[in-house]
């Protein structure tokens, strides 16, 4: 799998989910069908490529497609 393929897989999968925009690292690994360490390389790159972004509760970090989800509005950051 190359980076583009990985990105494609994740983006397609995440777009399909309704009512939910934030995902755990594990969920992304499952989408990629990869173990955590190789998956991390793709995922971190997707953050740099501004396809994904982090969301954190402080204690826990989640991933979402950039700009997607309700939180930004709630936080008046939009």
């Amino acid at each position: 799998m190359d980076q583009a393929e990985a990105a494609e897989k994740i983006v397609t999968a995440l777009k399909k989910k309704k009512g939910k925009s934030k995902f755990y690292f594990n969920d992304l690994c499952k989408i990629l069908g990869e173990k955590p360490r190789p998956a991390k390389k793709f995922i971190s790159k997707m953050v740099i490529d501004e396809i994904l972004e982090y969301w954190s509760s402080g204690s826990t970090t989640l991933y979402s497609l950039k700009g997607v989800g309700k939180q930004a509005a709630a936080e008046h950051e939009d």
Partner: protein
Amino acid sequence: MAFVSSGYNPDKPMANRITDIGPRKFDEFYPPVIAKNKGKWLYHEILEPGILVHVAESGDEVYTIRTGGCRLMSVSHIREICEIADKHCDGHLRFTTRNNIEFMVDSKEKVEPLKQDLLSRKQAGGCYKFPIGGSGAGITNIVHTQGWIHCHTPATDASGTVKATMDVLFDDFTNMRLPAKLKVSMACCLNMCGAVHCSDIAILGYHRKPPMLDHEYMNKMCEIPLAIAACPTYAIKPAKVTLEDGTEVKSVSVNEPRCMFCGNCYTMCPAMPLADDVGDGIVLMAGGKVSNRISAPKFSKVVVAFIPNEMPRWPTMTDAIQRMVEAYAADANKYERLGEWAERIGWERFFEKCELEFTHHLIDDFRDPAYFTWRQTTNFKF
């Protein structure tokens, strides 16, 4: 207020970016006497409360003056610390694991002037800026958390309860009359940011009401699946709710008897606030420790189930704490930590001696290991 750029270009976040460099390397910051004698210390002595000397194989000595730190510290205050360190300590200092400030000097003569300087500095209301103490068989600084200063789930304030408590325990900060060290910690909700779960005395903020449900905004402000998943006791279920105006909205319901008032839902979902003026307050715990000295580390036990928030000085809470400290001081053996004392005399005596009421709330009923806290022997005291 004009925006001054650091050099960062938001359009090209990666340009010229420095990442993953970590913290500064510790040895840049060592005072010379430390750098020279590191790993070669022979012994130490506490000369007076808060003033220690460490003697190295080389014969070198380092004198440490430990002063109480507020932890919540303004840059003005830090600059004042720096000023002192520059004046007395060649521009070096350190912070302890309990947020005290340690000023170190490399000879005995330098101790007295430093001490006088520190003690002479007072705040406007008469509080010490740099009280000296926190060593040996006394009470040191309270490690604590954010409270109402910054966190979204606290059930009480952190800095406020700590100030109130340290004022009351101050004599034991500057003295070493206790049987052993007595560590007080504070955490403002049951996430327990810190080592509150194994402190001699722990102040814990606790909610007692399940979250309110802002149905109208639930699905607007929160991702409902995240709120549901956040609940450690699976008390939250999705629900359809009809608002007063007749519209039906997606929301959640909470199985209230299952709620442990942890606030995890509020972290994920601002439409589920749980703070409450009379619901929230303080749980006191006691008898924990961390060191392995003589006995293994121990968890703190809940000894007062609830004390209301009494701003600004929480007198009921500080009274209870003082009673524990005094009962311990009067009754424990030398070297015996509070929890070791309680176990030796038996918790039935602890409650008597500390004049604390024993209520059903203090009996463990949380999951299977609760069983291990019940009494399975005739060995108890009437």
